[in-house]
């Protein structure tokens, strides 16, 4: 008998999907700027990229505020507990129909692999992209205070590295989003906020009001 838990609040869902749209936009326009594809003109790509970047920065400021005021940051504290079971599940159990080794609850809504991946995004990829991106944007003003070996080429390199890591994360993330008990289960949860669970123990706490 299946129950539902309210996992993702309205702001969190908005943050997630807005971020998704902006990140994909930034990747697409960014690779146009880098000359990887020619589906947009250079100038158009720059304009969109810059506008999307500022929107994402704004969103990020709100999200950081939200994480700390709601205590949601605790979901990203890394843990190695049961990480072996997680890896075994994705490597083997998922094919044999083994039960998911991690029970999602409102207190712990991300499994250990998710925690590590999202923490990596927040602490490595995002800062790399933002710091290098802002240097890129304001290069004319900051170049004179940079050491000689650190030119626009290096800034662009770091920014592109961040973009590639983000792309890798995005692909993995989108794929694993289909790895719920049905392919659309996780995605539905991120749209509605409600996750279907099959274990009463997961629902021991009532959903907090949104």
């Amino acid at each position: 008998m299946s129950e539902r838990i309210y996992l993702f609040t309205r702001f969190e869902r908005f943050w997630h999907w807005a971020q998704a749209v902006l990140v994909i936009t930034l990747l697409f326009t960014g690779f146009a700027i880098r000359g990887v594809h020619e589906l947009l003109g250079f100038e158009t790509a720059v304009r969109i990229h810059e506008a999307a970047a500022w929107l994402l920065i704004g969103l990020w400021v709100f999200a950081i505020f939200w994480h700390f005021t709601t205590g949601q940051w605790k979901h990203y504290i890394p843990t190695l507990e049961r990480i072996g079971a997680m890896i075994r599940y994705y490597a083997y159990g998922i094919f044999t129909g083994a039960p998911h080794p991690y029970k999602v609850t409102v207190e712990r809504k991300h499994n250990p692999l998710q925690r590590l991946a999202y923490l990596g995004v927040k602490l490595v990829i995002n800062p790399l992209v933002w710091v290098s991106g802002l240097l890129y944007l304001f290069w004319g003003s900051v170049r004179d205070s940079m050491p000689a070996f650190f030119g626009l080429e290096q800034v662009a390199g770091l920014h592109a590295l961040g973009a590639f890591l983000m792309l890798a994360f995005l692909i993995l993330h989108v794929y694993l989003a289909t790895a719920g008990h049905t392919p659309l289960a996780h995605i539905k949860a991120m749209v509605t906020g409600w996750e279907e669970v099959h274990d009463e123990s997961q629902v021991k706490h009532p959903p907090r009001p949104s």
Partner: protein
Amino acid sequence: MKTRRGAGWVLLLLLMWLSPAMASTADHTRFDALEGPFESAEEVTQACLSCHTEASKQVMATRHWTWEYENPHGGETLGKKTMLNTFCIADQSNEGFCQSCHVGYGWEDDTFDFSDEGRVDCLACHNTGDYVKKGGWAGWPNEELTDLTRAAQNVAATSRATCGSCHFYGGGGDGVKHGDLDSSLFHPHRDLDVHMDVEGLNFSCSTCHQTESHDVPGSRIQGTAVDAHAAMIRGSDNGRNPATCQACHGSAPHESGSHAQRLNEHTRSLACQTCHIPEFARGGVPTKMEWDWSTAGRLDEEGNPIQIKNEDGYVIYDSKKGDFVPGENVVPEYLWWDGNTTFVTAETEIDPGERAAVNAYHGTPGAEDARIWPVKRALGKQPYDTVHMTLLKPQVAIPGNETAFWYNYDWDKALAAGTELAGQPFSGEYDFVETSMLWPITHMVAPGEMALDCAACHADDGRLAGVEGVWMPGRDRHERLDRFGFGLAGLILLGALGHGSLRFVNRNRRKGH
């Protein structure tokens, strides 16, 4: 607010231009000294000097008079008088012809007296018509086309017509040399030159080349390649070249639009001209991109010189001069330039195994004191001494003798006579060597909406392909990083597809659970 400030600038510029041109306080037709009639051009000069007592001395201190210039970088003596180029090659031994563009009278050979104030030609720059100096008169006006008295009574400030009568015809014909200076600038439309537009700002040459004491600022021999300063008040004596773009526009000229800041940052690397002169020779007059002297002298069956024209009516072969390649709407080449230019002189040894660069533009890629400039690269093929390995100065243009090439089609005689008069050693052995010469592109500034768009350069094989010293998104990328990045993304995608397929294949086991 910005618009009003811009309008204010335009008004100020207009006033500055109008005040000398229109608001003269003297009506020269009423001066006794100019009553005439004048029998000779020198008499006109004396009449001018009777009031403008210092004018001749001022002119004689300038390169317009001396055709001589000491390179502040290399110390070598330059100037039209002795220099070589890839067009008419050399002035020396051809003075009688070429000096029709000298601001003096009678410079026919090296006996010309540069201290004779009466030989200064005031009318060359200050006439408003009725005055013509043509090739072959050593700077004297052509009597048939000139009315000295009328010309003297109707003097005025310099104009596009007076400056252009020489500078638009450098290299022996309309638009030949520069590529950004030709007769289309006598009456330019807005798209050709946004400042000179006859229906708009209507600048004359001296609006930018604002002259003090007859000394006209701005030179291609040593250019002002970088002027990273704010706009300056016209007439302020601060040693800056008033003819630069920045002298009026400053170095952060883009004020409106979402890209203004970004475009202003480009001024750290680019000359204004690089984006704002998208092509040169845009006025309907072709410029000579190539000139091959080695084929000159071919005559028809009766022994007469020939001319061959292309389908547009432009001369592409002339027995006197050889083969030409004309070019219109030419996309410039781009290179770093700090204003320092060096030249091959008649003494410089060249390597005939490669194309000899008659001049070289210097500048360290990416350096603070250099900018990326648009240039015209003119190609040539011209005589050199196979023993001394020097470019040779032929006599080509002097009629009525046995030596000038245009009248005898004999290189041996032309080179012997030219080098002797120029004082250049000549072994008697010669051949033709490929040469090239650079010309800065700085005129024919287009309206802002015609400036290059981003992708003209920020692209593979864009205009700045091969220009070093700048990292350009769209042109430059890190090959290895890209391989790593897309490799990583690709592997993850493959992994996901494989994993997903396995899940799909095993879906029934799962349902059975």
